[in-house]
C-alpha cells in the first residue's frame, strides 16, 4: 500500500484535528499500541467474571452441566456475525473512501471471524451430540452458519491468492459486500428451504426461555468475547501494517540495488 509508506513520511500536523487523523497508519499504530494493553486488561477481567459466573450458574434441569457449552457457543455465534458486519463496513470504506486502513481492517478481521465461526460450529456440534444425539443435522441455522464459514474462507483464500495488496483490496471489498447482501438471503432462504420439506427432527432446537441465572453469565461472556475480538483485531491490523512495511521495504531494497 503505497499510501501507507508515503503518508507516513509526511510531517505530522501538530494536533489530530478529527477522527480521520487516526486513519494515518503511523498514528494508528501509536494509538493501537496505547489502547491495546487497556483493551487486553478489560478483556481478561470480563473473561474472569464471565467464567466465574458461568461455572457458578445452576445446572439446567434438562441439559445438566452441558449447559456450560452455551456460554462458549452463543457468544461465538454472535461474534461470527458481528465480525462480518465489521468487514462489510471496512469494504465500504475501501470502495467509497479508498481508505488504506479499511483494507487492513478487512483483511485482519477475516481470519478472526472465521475462527469465531469455526468455534460456534464446533461447540454447537459438541453440544448437539448430547442434546440431539447427532453431531450434525442440516438444520436451517446450522447450515447458514456453515455457509457463512465458507464465505469467510473464500475471502481468506482470495486474500492469499492475490499478491498485490492494492488489487486485492478492491477485490476483497467487492466480494465481502456482495457476500453481505447474501447473508440475510441465506438466513431467509434457509427458512424457506426448511419449511418446504423438512419434517423437523430438530424440534427441540429453539429459544429456551432464558432464566436470569443463565442470562447474566451469557451476557458477560458476550462482552468478554467482544473485547477479545477488538483486541485480536487491533493486533492483527498492527501486524498487517507492519508486514506491508516490511514487504515494501524489501522491494525497495531490491530495486535500489539495480
Amino acid at each position, binding site marked *: 500500500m503505497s499510501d501507507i509508506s508515503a503518508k507516513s513520511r509526511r510531517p505530522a500536523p501538530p494536533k489530530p484535528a478529527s477522527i480521520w487523523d487516526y486513519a494515518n497508519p503511523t498514528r494508528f499504530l501509536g494509538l493501537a499500541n496505547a489502547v491495546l494493553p487497556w483493551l487486553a486488561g478489560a478483556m481478561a477481567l470480563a473473561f474472569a467474571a464471565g467464567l466465574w459466573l458461568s461455572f457458578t450458574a445452576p445446572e439446567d434441569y434438562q441439559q445438566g452441566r452441558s449447559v456450560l457449552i452455551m456460554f462458549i457457543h452463543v457468544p461465538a455465534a454472535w461474534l461470527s456475525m458481528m465480525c462480518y458486519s465489521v468487514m462489510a463496513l471496512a469494504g465500504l470504506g475501501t*470502495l467509497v473512501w479508498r481508505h488504506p486502513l479499511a483494507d487492513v481492517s478487512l483483511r485482519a478481521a477475516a481470519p478472526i471471524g472465521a475462527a469465531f465461526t469455526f468455534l460456534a460450529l464446533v461447540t454447537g456440534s459438541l453440544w448437539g451430540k448430547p442434546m440431539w444425539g447427532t453431531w450434525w443435522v442440516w438444520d436451517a441455522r446450522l447450515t447458514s452458519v456453515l*455457509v457463512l464459514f*465458507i*464465505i469467510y*474462507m*473464500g475471502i481468506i*483464500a*482470495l486474500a492469499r*491468492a*492475490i499478491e*498485490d495488496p*492494492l*488489487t486485492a483490496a*478492491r*477485490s476483497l471489498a*467487492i*466480494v465481502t*459486500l*456482495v*457476500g453481505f*447482501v*447474501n447473508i440475510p*438471503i*441465506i438466513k431467509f*432462504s*434457509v427458512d*424457506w*428451504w426448511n419449511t*418446504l*420439506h423438512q419434517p423437523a427432527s430438530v424440534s427441540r432446537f429453539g429459544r429456551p426461555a432464558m432464566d436470569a441465572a443463565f442470562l447474566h453469565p451469557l451476557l458477560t461472556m458476550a462482552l468478554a468475547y467482544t473485547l477479545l475480538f477488538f483486541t485480536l483485531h487491533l493486533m492483527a491490523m498492527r501486524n498487517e501494517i507492519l508486514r506491508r512495511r516490511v514487504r515494501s521495504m524489501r522491494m525497495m531494497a531490491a530495486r535500489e540495488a539495480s
Partner: protein
Amino acid sequence: MMALFARELKLATRVGAGAMTGVLFFLAVVTVVPFAVGPDLNLLARIGPAVLWIGALLASLLGLDRLFQQDREDGSLAILLMSEHPSALIVFVKCLAHWAATGLPLIVAAPIFGLFLNMEAKAIAATVATLAVGTPAITFIGAVGAAVTVTLARGGLIIAILVLPLVLPSLIFGVAASYGAVEDPAPFTQPFIMLTAVTLFLAVLGPLAAGFALKHAID
C-alpha cells in the same frame, strides 16, 4: 454490443468444448447418481429435480474462470473498457453470450437426462423451466468471481467457492418450484417468482460489481 455478443459466441463455440464439456459433465453427474441411490426408481424420480439442478449448477462452474482472463491476457479487455460503453454493460453482454454457449445446451439436454432419472413429464417440464430462468443467475454471480480473480493464473476453484454460497437461493427456489409442480401441497408459482426475482436481482448486481472490479484489473 451486438458485435461483442457475436464475437463471444463465436469464440466460445470455436474454441469449442465449452458447451460439450458442460453437457458431458452433466451427463456424468446424472449417470452416477443411480449407482449411488440403487435401483429404486421412485426415489430416483423424486430426487430427479435436485440432481438436475446440482448437475447444471456444477457444470456451469466449468469455464467460468475464462470469462475475462483471456481478454485480459491478450490485451482486449483494456480496449473494451476504454470504450464509451459502461463496463457493467460489457460484462452483462459477455455473461449472456457465456450463458448462451454453456447454459443453454444444458437446458436443452436436461429433458433427456430427466428421462434417465425416470422423472414424469410434468416434473421435467417444470425443472427445465426453472433451469432456464435460474441458471443465468449462476453466470451473473460467477462474473463477479471471474472479475475478482482475473489476475490469477488458475482462479477456477476460488471462483467456484465464491460463487456456490451465493447461488444457494437460486438452487433452493429452483428445486422447490420443480417439486411444487408435482407434489400437491407445495406451490409452484411462488418459488418460481422468487427464482425469477433472484435472477433479475443478480443480473443487475453481478455485472455492476464485476464491471467495477474489472476497472482495476488492468495494470
